[in-house]
């Protein structure tokens, strides 16, 4: 028995390593990135040869994991909540094929959108796919669920969705590890047809999936993560999902006087829900994310036997992350504010680093666009999205991964010519290539700037799938060599770069400008490691 200190994300990683995983597939995305990074760094994982390279995007990651599961071995996929939108096609269909080796899909949601475009609740996807969901309340549960998740998946023959949120992912606590489980052997599915989703086969598989639902609910009724604790004060009953249970406990240091149903495994335990709703005068539902359970308890006709309170009746805010003070208010207790923030306080938002290449190319782009009018720069997701803020105010849109190129094309089709797309290198190989293909086929009058810092920067400098490949990809897709330009974004090259951009803006066809300079953060990290390694080796 081994005690370690781990972030929630790391606890999942360690649980999976100890639980017999053979491979993790992922694309960086806050707050999920740390799971894969931990596995990449872990000497035990490396010794066992656990696959842990980054995938080009969440869809390829999900599909590779399905492939490993098909071959009988245990696999894990990791992504942030919007990453599941990208992986949705294979994810939903993996419920129909079922799993071979245990398959855990870990999705990290970001309530309050600390670093995301939305705060969608991934439990919806589990319900939509008709798959079991595990939702840990703390670091120990995160470890346990990953450790045991593969055998749950193999037992029901389905992938399992594991859902965490930022607050748990990036919070550290003590975790007890369990004994290492050996990996599975290579083993093909007994049913030779189950992974072939021709309609005739899929219809049968879907019926099997539907028939499994009662079994899944039965498993939830008896799951260790779903506990119904009685309480003397039945004027209120509380249902707390995942991490919200901590916020409930925080407000009752002497113990909770009301009955509490803690939920950590879905489908929800219906019997336990019926028990608590029939024995209490009123129910408060605490769930991080959308009011999914709350809504289903209310029903369309609001025919719940007891009043249901939560996000929908205003007891809790409809949006944003929960915390112990919001729960405290919902429980009718007084909140004890400390002193107010003084008026002199100002915001200190994240900004592009001093010396960042994105800054230089934005300056050149802004100048080149002076005579063309505003509103035509379609950008994407990465550090360069910070170009939206003052003093740059350089971009007009950022919607989803890869949308820069395709939105620029659509706007150009509408007559907004020229349109400019700004995309990073990692985002380009994630989902910019297919948009480029569309644009090349129609020779759209757009100028694509690939701001290439040779890394996946915003998430902390992970290896980018694009490195060394961008020119080849662009030429291979069909961009004309004469309209594929490479520039170095530096102050001293400003005038030259403005001219290059101007020339391409004036060209009525597809242009790609690669603005390449290594991210200064990864560059300095690399140099620091080189110096450290040298000094340690000279010592020995």
């Amino acid at each position, binding site marked *: 028995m081994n005690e370690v*200190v781990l972030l929630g994300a790391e606890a999942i990683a360690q649980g999976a390593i100890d639980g017999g995983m053979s491979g993790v597939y992922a694309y960086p995305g*806050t*707050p999920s*990135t*740390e799971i894969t990074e931990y596995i990449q760094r872990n000497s035990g994982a490396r010794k066992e040869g656990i696959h842990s390279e980054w995938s080009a995007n969440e869809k390829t990651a999900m599909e590779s994991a399905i492939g490993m599961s098909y071959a009988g071995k245990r696999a894990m996929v990791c992504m942030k909540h919007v990453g599941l939108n990208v992986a949705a096609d294979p994810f939903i269909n993996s419920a129909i094929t079922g799993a071979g080796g245990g398959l855990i899909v870990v999705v990290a949601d970001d309530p309050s959108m*600390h*670093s995301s475009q939305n705060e969608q609740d991934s439990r919806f996807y589990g319900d939509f796919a008709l798959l079991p969901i595990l939702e840990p309340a703390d670091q120990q549960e995160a470890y346990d669920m990953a450790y045991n998740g593969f055998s749950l998946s193999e037992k029901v023959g389905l992938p399992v969705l594991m859902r965490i949120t930022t*607050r*748990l992912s*990036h*919070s*550290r*606590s*003590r975790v007890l590890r369990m004994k290492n489980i050996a990996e599975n052997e290579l083993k093909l599915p007994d049913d030779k047809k189950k992974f072939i989703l021709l309609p005739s086969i899929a219809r049968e598989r879907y019926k099997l999936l539907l028939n499994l639902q009662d079994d899944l609910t039965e498993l939830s009724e008896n799951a260790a993560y779903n506990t119904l604790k009685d309480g003397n004060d039945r004027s209120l009953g509380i249902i707390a999902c995942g*991490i919200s249970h*901590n*916020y409930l*406990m*925080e407000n009752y240091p002497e113990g909770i006087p009301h009955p509490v149903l803690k939920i950590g495994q879905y489908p929800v335990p219906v019997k336990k829900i019926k028990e608590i709703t029939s024995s209490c005068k009123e129910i408060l539902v605490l769930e991080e994310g959308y009011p999914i359970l709350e809504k289903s308890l209310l029903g369309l006709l609001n025919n719940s036997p007891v009043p249901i309170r939560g996000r929908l009746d205003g007891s809790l805010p409809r949006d944003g992350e929960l*915390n*112990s*003070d919001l729960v*405290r208010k919902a429980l009718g207790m007084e*909140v*004890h*504010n*400390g*002193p*107010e*923030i*003084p008026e*002199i*306080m*100002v*915001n*200190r*938002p*994240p*900004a*592009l*680093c001093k010396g960042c290449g994105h800054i230089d190319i934005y300056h050149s782009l802004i100048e080149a666009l002076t005579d063309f009018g505003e509103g035509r720069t379609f950008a994407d997701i990465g550090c360069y999205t910070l170009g939206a803020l003052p003093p740059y105010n350089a971009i007009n849109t950022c919607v989803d991964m890869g949308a820069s190129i395709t939105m620029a094309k659509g706007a150009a089709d509408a007559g907004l010519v020229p349109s400019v797309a700004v995309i990073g290198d990692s985002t380009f190989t994630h989902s910019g290539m297919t948009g480029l293909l569309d644009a090349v086929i129609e020779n759209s009058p757009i100028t694509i700037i690939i701001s290439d810092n040779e890394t996946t920067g*915003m*998430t*902390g400098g992970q290896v980018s799938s694009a490195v060394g490949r961008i020119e080849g990809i662009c030429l291979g897709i069909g961009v004309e060599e004469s309209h594929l330009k490479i520039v170095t974004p530096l102050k001293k090259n400003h005038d030259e770069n403005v001219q290059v951009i101007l020339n391409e803006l004036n060209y009525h066809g597809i242009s790609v400008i690669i603005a390449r300079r290594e991210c200064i*953060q990864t560059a300095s990290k690399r140099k620091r490691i080189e110096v*450290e390694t040298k*000094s*340690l080796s000279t*010592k020995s």
Partner: protein
Amino acid sequence: MLCELHPTNKIKYMGMKKSNIILSGVGGQGILTIAGIIGMATLKEKLYFKQSEVHGMSQRGGAVQSNFRIADTPVASDLVPLGQADLILSVEPLETLRYLPFLNKNGWLVCNSSPFINVPDYPELEKILNTIAEWPNHLIIDADKIAKDLGNRRGSNMVILGAASQYICLDFESLESGISAIFERKGDAVVQQNLLALRAGRDAALK
């Protein structure tokens, strides 16, 4: 929450060990390193804890904070509730004020007086320091200067930790062993450098 200043600079809350700490500063100032050291120290003393931190967007010059909760019974919320922080430990003066609503009425503000000015509307330093000084339990030290005088420019975070150590329910020796644990792979010279900074901060606070 009653507390007494123990002769060896330890705070014990009515015999219970408990600290709710908010660490604050700017991305890149070593807040997470401080958290790591407190973590090692907490583990050594076999206490329960939860420590949450901000990753992702808030790096690179954005405001950064970490919540550190220590107790001898299991900790529930990963975040310090409003009005429950015993200590706001800040490596940057403006960042000290950002989490005031979390401070409990006997809580301490310990901060560095050297500003990190990377926004155009940064307030006057005098105003910031005066606002901090309005709170009775405050300690302002020039951690940057102390670190520089030790020849360890990047050590202000260690200095502040040393200065605040008397308000954390952990033994000073535990913090020292935390430094050894965190920095050991960088070699003994680095460990010693950081220990010196920690002690210098403690000494400055006692003056």
